[in-house]
């Protein structure tokens, strides 16, 4: 690595050193309490997958360049130079971590491994060594935000085609629009994924609840966050914030996508609208009696997988359980305490990387598969696109024979037409 590149990368590193990050980099006592916390280590048993070990990969570079010690006595902390080999280690550490923050629950100090890995990811972006796919997807999203007008029409036609399926789930009064778009002054802006399964069920539920809603032009998922690029993350987020402000909505509702929800909720800052997850909104409809659900559709034990970014990291814990109580009498918890729920193993962009990571994702999530098997459930419900894909893959790989379902589509299927 030439000195110029290193200098640029170290500048990126420096930019990440806010107060919290410095706490995290200064503090680890290598006590080993977090050893069993990571599903990757718990499933595969390799030391390099222990949370503290991943952190040290970044911390060693910190010790070399950002502590006086790095000049005087580097060996005392195993300080390490930033070179091409270090980049490879950073890649291995960051892209085998799903950012689930389960280890943060274990650590006596609460060190946030995901946040430390964000340095690794940023350095990789800076060195153009990040997974190309994630950058590609992020750039595509950003481009869409820039040139909305060009594809607006074709997108609208695409959405129109979904409307008949929405009506199949919920018959509307004549004259209503099953999937309203671009509605000035709507109460709620729904930000979905650009896939039919993410739009149709929830559209039906909104219509059933008589919500004054409108569908966003943009997809919720933030590939910028997966690739760990703060600039791109912000640009992708801004498209939606701009749209929400233009339409003057009161609430932005994020579809079943963990990253999208956490990024929107925490990064949007103070805005004239509130941010909710679609799960919270659906629970609210039930509570207010705006929708009724048929409880007799499901047979067998039902369990719920808490998506890390929505539950442990996003505080949506009671709402899905409340909804499930209205869908089945046979609900069984997966983990005694939701903050200890195992990650599905697909977060942090690993699912978006597709086939490339499939083998690793299956091996690293054995503990998840075992946890699901222990519930003896026949239906596994979740509320995140990533988790859903990963759980389906696990279901095939470990031949679990369960039904993996989206919570929203279960609500839509159980709607009682008055």
């Amino acid at each position: 690595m030439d000195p110029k590149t290193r200098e640029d990368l170290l500048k990126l590193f420096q930019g990440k050193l806010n107060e919290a990050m410095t706490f995290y980099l200064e503090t680890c006592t290598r006590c080993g309490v977090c050893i069993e916390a990571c599903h990757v280590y718990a499933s595969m048993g390799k030391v390099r997958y222990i949370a503290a070990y991943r952190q040290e990969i970044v911390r060693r570079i910190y010790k070399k360049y950002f502590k006086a010690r790095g000049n005087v006595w580097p060996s005392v902390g195993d300080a390490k130079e930033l070179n091409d080999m270090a980049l490879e280690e950073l890649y291995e550490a960051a892209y085998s971590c799903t950012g689930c923050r389960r280890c943060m629950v274990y650590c006596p100090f609460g060190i946030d491994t995901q946040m430390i890995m964000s340095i690794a990811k940023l350095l990789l972006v800076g060195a153009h060594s990040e997974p190309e796919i994630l950058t590609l997807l992020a750039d595509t999203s950003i481009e869409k935000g820039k040139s909305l007008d060009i594809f607006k029409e074709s997108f609208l036609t695409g959405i129109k085609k979904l409307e008949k399926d929405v009506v199949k789930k919920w018959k509307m009064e004549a004259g209503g629009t099953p999937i309203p778009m671009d509605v000035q002054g709507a109460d709620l802006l729904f930000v979905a994924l650009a896939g039919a399964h993410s739009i149709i069920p929830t559209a039906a539920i909104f219509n059933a609840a008589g919500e004054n809603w409108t569908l966003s032009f943009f997809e919720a998922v933030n590939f910028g966050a997966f690739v760990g690029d703060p600039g791109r993350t912000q640009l992708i987020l801004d498209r939606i914030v701009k749209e929400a402000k233009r339409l003057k909505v009161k609430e932005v509702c994020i579809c079943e996508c963990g990253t999208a929800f956490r990024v929107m909720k925490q990064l949007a800052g103070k805005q004239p609208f509130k941010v909710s997850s679609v799960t919270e909104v659906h629970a609210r409809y039930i509570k207010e009696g705006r929708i009724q659900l048929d409880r007799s559709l499901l047979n067998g034990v039902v369990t719920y997988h808490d998506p890390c970014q929505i539950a442990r990291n996003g505080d949506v814990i009671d709402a899905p359980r409340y909804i499930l109580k209205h869908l089945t009498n046979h609900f069984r918890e997966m983990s005694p305490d939701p903050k200890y729920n195992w990650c599905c193993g697909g977060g942090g962009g690993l699912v978006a990387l597709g086939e490339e990571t499939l083998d690793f994702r299956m091996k690293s999530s054995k503990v998840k598969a075992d946890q699901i098997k222990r519930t003896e459930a026949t239906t596994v419900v979740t509320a995140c696109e990533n988790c859903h894909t990963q759980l389906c893959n696990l279901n095939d790989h470990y031949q679990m024979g369960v039904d993996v379902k989206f919570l929203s589509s279960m609500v839509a299927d159980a709607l009682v037409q008055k």
Partner: protein
Amino acid sequence: MNTLYYFVLIPMVYFSFTVFFVGTGIRLVKIFRKPKQSTSLQIYPEKRPQWLWALHDTFLFPSVRKHKPVLWIFLILFHVCLLLLMIGHLELFGEFRIFQIIPHEVFLGKGFVGLILCLAVLFFLFRRFLSPVRELSVPEDYYLLILLFLIVLFGSQMDWARRWYGYEELLVEDYRTYLLSLLTLKPELPYNVINSGHSFMLVLHVFFANLFLIFFPFSQSMHSFLSLPMNKLRRG
């Protein structure tokens, strides 16, 4: 020999305390003046009041108790004894009424505090030689523990000698004269302090303690100050 004793017991003590206080102070101020994280780092579900739970997490290590119960027992013993030792050292400067609420001879705990600390440190040290904590550890972790062991060992030896073997040459009064003279910046070394048979222990104790204090601000020991703010971040 006397010059060496003098060097360790007076100038080096001043130096190490300066490094410790100034170093720790400056580093903390620098860290706390960095820009705050703009997003929440909280883990849910939350419990209120959050500051109380942050204190609970900081001082009772509930996550260690849950996941590594044996380590937890040693950690609690270690940190409690550390606190008692700090009180003990303060009492080497003079009498403190509040500490005598429970009447005791100086150095609380009849010599057992030191013994427990020795064992706890040995436990931490040997843990670090076992995989996978071994692969996680870096040299500083071992150095700190070895230093601590040496400090506690020589410190305790002096205490044990007095209490358990009835060694009467080096007494609390001698230490008080010495330490108060340091505090009032008129350093003097009473005859007993450097000429008794156990003086070498005092010198070694102070020497290693000096090294520890000098290293402290630059090591992972800073966790003692950063633990509370970090736990607060997690609790929200």
